[in-house]
């Protein structure tokens, strides 16, 4: 979509530091023959909001628990703040965790929960009180200090867990699917708040999630994991727009895959022939490994636009609507294109009446060749 006006992002971004905060080197964790984590290497930078994203069982929680010290690598090393973590028990690591279940102490009230870790620091009463108040204010829980843990809502429990970890002023805050127990509305609100909080305190956040939208919305960078391996580490935009393989592309939203024949391969670009989209020149992904003469191209459903009436575009494909699914603000069209083995899925806003297109209508779709990305299988 060329010449679209650029909209400045309203949130203030913290300048990104390049200094490494967490260094994970060749970490493997095996349980007998099963490898929960397989030779993972990763550097998380200081002050970064980093997400470990993947389906359940991909090893993301195992990795988080190893950073926290609740689990140990079978081989490989983990360093936090330049300090190797080997042999350092969880209670002496410069990390704090927000647990998936929040793990609020039921026998203590909110204040006592937040002050739990401070007791060991032997602060003066006034100083301890000030830090607890400050932490409660950071998560907008001022005035609820005397509440019992059992009287809190899900969202409030999440905030207490956050305050209890933040009050320790850790180098790294680890979050284990903290929003998965909340309902959709609250979850979306918390995503915004969590991002804002991270920007305000500047602490490195490492979030484990299986929700791709959560990862995209909050993170500076994301590591996508499958089967104990890290598939791709990049910014949300890069991951979404230039996934390294089909698995990553599929996990982050919808993707139309198109088989292609490589015509020409040079240093940075590929020229391929497809049946539906013709000859396409595309950027070659960094980790591209040529597998015979074939390649896979992908295009996101929202990068295909319906051409209404007699409108034309420089690049278009023609087909026929075979299914229509209405989603309120958008409509999902399944469009059969002659020559493509699978019909394309197209997301179209309802402004121009996509929700009224009868099934069977011949249709033309416009696309930007740049949106067609090559990836490994």
């Amino acid at each position: 979509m060329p010449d679209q006006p650029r909209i400045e992002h309203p949130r203030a971004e913290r300048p990104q530091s390049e200094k490494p905060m967490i260094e994970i080197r060749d970490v493997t964790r095996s349980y007998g023959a099963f490898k929960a984590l397989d030779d993972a290497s990763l550097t998380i930078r200081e002050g970064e909001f980093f997400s470990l994203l993947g389906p359940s069982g991909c090893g993301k929680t195992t990795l988080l628990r190893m950073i926290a010290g609740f689990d140990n690598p079978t081989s490989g090393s983990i360093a936090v703040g330049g300090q190797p973590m080997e042999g350092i028990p969880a209670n002496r690591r410069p990390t704090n965790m927000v647990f998936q279940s929040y793990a609020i102490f039921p026998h203590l009230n909110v204040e006592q929960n937040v002050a739990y870790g401070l007791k060991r620091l032997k602060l003066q009463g006034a100083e301890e009180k000030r830090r607890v108040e400050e932490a409660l204010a950071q998560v907008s829980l001022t005035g609820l200090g005397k509440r019992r843990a059992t009287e809190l809502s899900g969202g409030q429990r999440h905030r207490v867990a956050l305050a209890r970890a933040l009050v320790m002023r850790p180098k790294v805050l680890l979050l284990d699917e903290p929003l998965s127990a909340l309902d959709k509305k609250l979850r979306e609100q918390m995503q915004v708040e969590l991002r804002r909080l991270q920007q305000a305190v500047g602490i490195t956040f490492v979030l484990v999630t299986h929700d791709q939208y959560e990862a995209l919305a909050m993170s500076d960078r994301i590591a996508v994991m499958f089967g104990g391996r890290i598939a791709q580490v990049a910014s949300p935009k890069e991951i979404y727009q230039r996934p390294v393989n089909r698995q990553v592309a599929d996990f982050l939203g919808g993707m139309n895959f198109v088989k292609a024949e490589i015509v020409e391969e040079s240093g940075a670009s590929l020229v391929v022939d497809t049946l539906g989209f013709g000859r396409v020149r595309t950027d070659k992904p960094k980790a591209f490994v040529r597998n015979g003469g074939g390649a896979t191209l992908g295009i996101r459903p929202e990068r295909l636009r319906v051409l209404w009436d007699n409108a034309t575009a420089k690049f278009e494909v023609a087909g026929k609507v075979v299914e229509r699914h209405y989603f309120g603000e958008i409509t999902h069209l399944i469009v059969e294109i002659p020559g493509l083995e699978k019909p394309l899925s197209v997301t179209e806003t309802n402004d121009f009446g996509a929700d009224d297109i009868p099934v069977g209508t011949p249709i033309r779709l416009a696309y930007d060749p740049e949106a067609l990305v090559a990836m490994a299988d």
Partner: protein
Amino acid sequence: MTAAAEGSAPLRMTRARRNALLQSEPVQGFALISPTFLYALVLLVLPILVVIAHSFWTQHYLTIDRTFTLENYRIALTEPIYRDLLWRSLYISLTVSLFTVILAYPIAYFISFHGGRHKSLWLFLITIPFWTSYLLRVMSWKVILGYNGVLNSGLMGLGIIDEPSTALLYNSSAVIITLTHAWAAFAILPIFVSLEKVDRTLVEAATDLGDGPLRSFLRVTLPLSAPGIISAALIVMIPTVGDYVTPKLVGGKDGVMIANAIQAQFGKAANWPLGAALSVTTMLIVSLMAGATVLIIRTLQRMAR
């Protein structure tokens, strides 16, 4: 027709109301417990009422004088022999429950936290001693603690003592040792159950916030298992105050407890009213002591924060 309609309307309403009543939760609950409730009423509440009534009467040989008197209670509370027996019973039961809880806690903790897949096997093993009669288990303690017993011959064989000690059997320590062993399983189970309910993530959270193993135990696991400790203490304390068999068999002269005195009043001494007054007094004191135990453990739990 109008008359019929008028007549049937209230009828239908009563039936609806009766159905609603039968389906209401409290009624169903009462229906469910009523066999047990009636059984308890007839065999527990009524005898207790009979005992309480007797405690205000007087006995002349075989006849009961039913005029109201507090004389029995005066004797029960002021007569040195009964006062001493009562104190000793309380002392023994408190000591037994303390030791039992202290000894049972590590076992329950081990099974709950380190039992792994074998938890039920461990619990099963703990019940094995109960396959034999209580009397046999008490008698086996006589074999262990006796003059020519296992302990004495063992200690002599090791050269630690020269002649058999008589201090082991026939005193209150023997009663305490026997009762502690006998009630251990009853203390392990409630503590185990309350430990099972402690969310392991809470212990992890405590560790994450800087606590070592001992601190996280004292600040999280122990306070959260307090309900189990309370039930264990009460389960042991309440019945042991009134225990009769154990002091009779291993207590000797110095191990006599209040229940033995009560038995004597109902038996040889033939003074049912005094026996009844002693029973009621014991019952009241045990209730007070149980209440005090709950309060003390709750306070300790609050102080641990």
